[in-house]
């Protein structure tokens, strides 16, 4: 693994799940669509198939709910929605992340000020 890939992987760990939670904050989205949207974000460098185990964990800890639904055109789709617990976790992350980011920006000199 290159240094860049290692860094990206480290940064992704612990933040990607909140990107997922935010994605389904306002609308229910089916799994394949979540995976595709994250896969299109080049800087996240996610391997699509590794998102499904993440979705599974978020469901098991009660942050996401899921239900299979028939699709008019294709195979059944599994739609994910944010639970109250997930909403609280996302809100908490936003607070923590803002403060975390500001500190890192200040220490690393990326704040632009």
């Amino acid at each position, binding site marked *: 693994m290159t240094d860049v890939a290692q860094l990206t992987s480290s940064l992704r760990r612990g933040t990607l799940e909140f990107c997922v939670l935010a994605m389904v904050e306002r609308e229910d989205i089916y*799994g*394949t669509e979540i*995976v595709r949207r994250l*896969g299109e974000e080049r800087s996240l460098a996610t*391997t*699509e*198939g*590794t998102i*499904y*185990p*993440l*979705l*599974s*964990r978020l469901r098991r800890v009660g942050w996401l709910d899921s239900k299979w639904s028939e699709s008019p*055109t*294709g*195979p*059944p*789709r*599994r739609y994910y929605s944010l639970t109250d617990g997930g909403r609280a976790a996302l809100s908490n992350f936003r607070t923590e992340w803002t403060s975390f980011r500001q500190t890192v920006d200040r220490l690393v000199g990326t704040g632009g000020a």
Partner: protein
Amino acid sequence: MSINKVDVAGEYLREVELRLSGLPVLQRHELLADLSAHIETAREQGAYSDGEMVEVLQRLGSPEAIAAAAYEEAGPRLVMAPPEPPPIRAPAPAPRNNNIWAWVIAAAVGFFVLFLIGVASLMFFSQVAEAPVPAVQQIDRPPVQEPAPDQPVPARPDGE
């Protein structure tokens, strides 16, 4: 061509399944159902050709990468029980579709071997450090002689 397309995805799913044997049954089936739905959706939305399906599978990632993520997300308790090594049964006359995964699998196996070597050497050196008195000497030495007290001299591991 249609048959070929089914084979690529089916073979891929089998490769993933082989690596998930350490997961709880429901999690294993859940992941396989998710991946199947993903593949079906891609097929429905235009991945008609063999090559297009291979691209879909490449974006999904190697079976090793998916299995690694599955074990990681399954929690520390399951990570402690190492995933069973993928059974190398049915060498199967490899069709040309296997070329894509060949080097990926080779790389994964390589990393795994390096990991094993690392663990083995760690265990070896920690054993040497904990037990400076070689067991062989204690056993072979006749009881008449006074058994040597704890000697600080370690067992002189070869090629230290």
